[in-house]
């Protein structure tokens, strides 16, 4: 049962992250936009008390890449961070009702 769960999260993350690698994100503005979006999503996850450590790590990687001037990599990481944050939001909202399924009765 657990493997099924992991695959659901896995597919969700890859799905969101997939298209971002394809597009060529060149400039610093793209990065800034993507980073802001990722931070906002992660903030929302925080309000739902359900952030992931990997979101924070990917955000940090994005910042590091940006500081080093590699905006392609930075934008890609920022988009991946946004995807992770969105997945954690999805998890929080869906679990709001689904937790009862596992409850011992």
């Amino acid at each position, binding site marked *: 049962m657990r493997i099924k769960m*992991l695959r659901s*999260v*896995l597919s969700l*993350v*890859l799905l969101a992250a997939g298209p971002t690698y394809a597009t060529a994100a060149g400039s610093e503005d793209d990065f800034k936009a993507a980073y802001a979006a990722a931070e906002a999503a992660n903030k929302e996850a925080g309000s739902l008390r359900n952030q992931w450590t*990997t979101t924070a790590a990917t955000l940090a990687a994005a910042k590091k890449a940006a500081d080093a001037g590699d905006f392609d990599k930075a934008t890609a990481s920022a988009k991946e961070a946004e995807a992770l944050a969105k997945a954690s939001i999805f998890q929080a909202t869906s679990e709001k009702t689904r937790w009862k399924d596992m409850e011992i009765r």
Partner: protein
Amino acid sequence: MTDVGFSATRRLILQGAGAVALVGLGNIPFGPTPALAAANDKYPEEAFKAKSEADAIKALYGKTAEPSDKVKMDAPEIAENGAVVPISVTTTLADVTSISFLVSENPVVLVASYKIPAGTLPNVANRIKMAKTSNVIVVVEAGGKLYSANKEVKVTVGGCGG
């Protein structure tokens, strides 16, 4: 959690975030050992430098050991944690003078060596560290001859994801 994620986690774990991490730096100088042993006998310096159990046993006792079922070793199948592995030995051999514990896969193979004067029973229990799954050997010197027993103890990284 792509493949990259997994190997990153493994590396993280191996870097000792929580587990005992080991650095194969080959011949680390053994560390300053200014204090020599107390009066009655010398600390077996060389033996604690040996990288293989044969060298360690030779440095300690100058002879080789033969397996004997009179040496009963009690060790777990799977260690609950490589940092604290309870190992004990009892033997029915007569006039035992020394008992030693070795772990073949540890960077320093000799872990502990006990001197058993007359009147002390030939049984010892202790808790040792194991780098990874390995053969644990106990050697008993009795009546000038060397006897041994060994058992494989499995050790793996514990814990959840990380």
